[in-house]
C-alpha cells in the first residue's frame, strides 16, 4: 500500500518555446506511515513531483498508483485522492480567504460533503492539532501573525483527514520559534496518527532531525533515496548538486580526524552531544 510512481515524466508546455522537462523517469515507492524528506536545489523538480501525488498535475507519461489503484484510470475519482493525499503549498497562508479562522478550516471538509456540524468538529480538531486555541476561532485569518496564519492553513488540509500529508517548505520565512513549533507539531502528528508525511525542505538540519528517509532530486531525477545517515555520508555528491550535509556533520567529521574514537556520520546536534559526552565519559 502507499504511493507508487512508475516512469513518471512531466514536461511543461511541450509544444512551444517555453518547453521544460521537469521530471525525468521518476520511480518511487512510498509506504504507509513513512516520514520522508524531499530535498533538492531550486528548480530540481520537487514542487512538480509533489503536485503529481494528488493529481494536480498529470504526468506526461508514466503511471501513479495510490493504494494499488491507478490514479489515471478513467473511473478513478480525483476528489478521493485529494482528500487522502493532503498537499500544503509553499506560503499556504496566501490561500486563506474566509472571514474567520474556523470557517476557513471548514472549507476542505465541506468540499468533501460533510454537514456543518461535522465540518466544524473536524476544523476544531485540526486547529487543536496545530496548537491554535479556541479564542482564535472567530478571528479574521488576516489579523494573525505569520506563523499562526501558516498553522491555520495547515489545519485547513489536516481537517480533511488525509492519510498522506505533503508539506512544501512549511517553515519558509518563519522565525526560529515558529519553525520549531510547526515542525514539532508535524512530528507529533506523525507519531500519534501514523500518517505518511512528506516534507519538502531546504534545511538539511530539519530534515536530519525529523525524517526517516530522504529523497534527493536533481534536474528532475531522483538522485539519491536512502536514510539520512547514508545520504549525508555522501556530502561531496550532495555538494555537487547544490546541497550540503548538516553543519554538525562537518564539525564532527573534523573532530573525528583529531579524535578517531568519535563517530564521523553524525547528522543531528542531539546525536553529536551524546557522542561527545560518551567520549568524555570513556576518557575519565
Amino acid at each position, binding site marked *: 500500500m502507499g504511493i507508487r510512481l512508475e516512469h513518471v515524466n512531466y514536461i511543461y*508546455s511541450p*509544444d*512551444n*518555446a517555453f518547453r521544460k522537462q521537469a521530471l525525468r523517469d521518476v520511480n518511487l515507492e512510498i509506504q504507509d506511515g513513512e516520514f520522508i524528506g524531499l530535498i533538492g536545489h531550486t528548480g530540481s523538480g520537487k514542487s512538480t513531483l509533489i*503536485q503529481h501525488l*494528488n493529481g*494536480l498535475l498529470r504526468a506526461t507519461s508514466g503511471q501513479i498508483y495510490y493504494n494499488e489503484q491507478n490514479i489515471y484510470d478513467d473511473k478513478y475519482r480525483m*476528489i478521493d485522492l*485529494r*482528500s487522502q493525499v*493532503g*498537499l*500544503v*503549498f509553499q506560503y*499556504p497562508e*496566501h*490561500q*486563506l*480567504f474566509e472571514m474567520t479562522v474556523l470557517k476557513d478550516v471548514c*472549507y*476542505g471538509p465541506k*468540499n*468533501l460533503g460533510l454537514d456543518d456540524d461535522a465540518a466544524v468538529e473536524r476544523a476544531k480538531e485540526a486547529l487543536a492539532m496545530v496548537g491554535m486555541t479556541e479564542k482564535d476561532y472567530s478571528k479574521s485569518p*488576516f489579523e494573525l501573525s505569520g506563523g499562526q496564519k501558516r498553522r491555520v492553513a495547515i489545519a*485547513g*488540509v489536516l481537517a*480533511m483527514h488525509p492519510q498522506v500529508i505533503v508539506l512544501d517548505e512549511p517553515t519558509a520565512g518563519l522565525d526560529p520559534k515558529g519553525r520549531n513549533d510547526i515542525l514539532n507539531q508535524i512530528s507529533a502528528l506523525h507519531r500519534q496518527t501514523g500518517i505518511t508525511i512528506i516534507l519538502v525542505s531546504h534545511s538539511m538540519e530539519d530534515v536530519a532531525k525529523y525524517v526517516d528517509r530522504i529523497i534527493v532530486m536533481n534536474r528532475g531525477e531522483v538522485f539519491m533515496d536512502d536514510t539520512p545517515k547514508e545520504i549525508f555520508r555522501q556530502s561531496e555528491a550532495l555538494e555537487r548538486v547544490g546541497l550540503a550535509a548538516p553543519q554538525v556533520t562537518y564539525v564532527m567529521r573534523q573532530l573525528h580526524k583529531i579524535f578517531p574514537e568519535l563517530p564521523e556520520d553524525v547528522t543531528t546536534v542531539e546525536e553529536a552531544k551524546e557522542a561527545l559526552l560518551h567520549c568524555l565519559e570513556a576518557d575519565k
Partner: protein
Amino acid sequence: MIRDITIGQYYPANSVIHRLDPRVKLLGTIVFVVTVFFVNDLMGLALATVALAAVIGLSKVPLKYMLKGLKAIFILMIFTVLLNIFLTPGTELVHLGFLKITKEGLVLAGKTAIRLIYLIVGSTIMTLTTTPNHLTDGLEKALGPLKKIHFPVHELAMTMSIALRFIPILMEETDKIMKAQQARCADFESGNLIQRMKSLIPILVPLFISAIRRANDLAMAMEARCYHGGVGRTKMKPLVYALRDYLAYLLILVYILIWTGVKVWL
C-alpha cells in the same frame, strides 16, 4: 486553461520581427489596425491578410500559440456575430419566429468576425515579439514630443509596462491559488451558475490580496532605488534605428500606398 491567455505575453524567438525597433512595430500595428477598421471589400481584405500572414511567418511564433489568444475573446465574438446576424435590417433570407436572418446581416457578421480576429492577432504579434521593457521604451520615445505640452509620457509608459508585467505574474498566482484550493477538494466545474460563481470566491479573495501586496512591494522597491519619475532619467540601452528598421518603415509606407490606391481607384 489559464495559460491560454496570450495577450500581452512575450514569446522568445530569434526572428527579424523580434529584432525590429519597437517604434516600427508600434507604427506598423497602428497602421494595420486602422486599415482593418476600414476594410470593406475583398481586395482590402486580401491585402491585410497577405500583410498579416507575412508578419506571422517572419515572427517565428507558432501560429497555434498565437491563435490561443483568440479563445479569450471567443464569447465576445460569438455574441457580436449573433447580434449582427439577427439584428441587421435588409433582404430577408430565413425567418425563425421573431428572428430573421438577412443577407446584409450575414455579410456584416462575417466582416465583424474577421475584423476582430485580425485586430487581436495583429496586436498580439506586437506583444509576443516585443519584451515589455522594449515596448515601453518604444512608446516613451514615440510619444516623446507630447512632453512639450506636459503630457505625462513617461508615467504613462511606466504604468503600461507595469500592467503588462503583472499579467503573467497574476496568472501564475491564480494558477497557484486554484491548485491550493483544489488540493482542498474545491470544485470549480460543476453546479449551476450561482454555485460556480460562489466557488470563485476562494480564488478571488486571495488573488486581490496578493495583487495589492505585490503592488505595495513593487512601489517600495522602486522608491528604495530612488525612482522619482522620468525627469533626468537616462537609458542603459537607448533605442537606435538600424537598416532593417528603415526598410520596415518603407514596407509600411508601401502598404499604406497600396491600400489608398485600392481605396481610391477600385
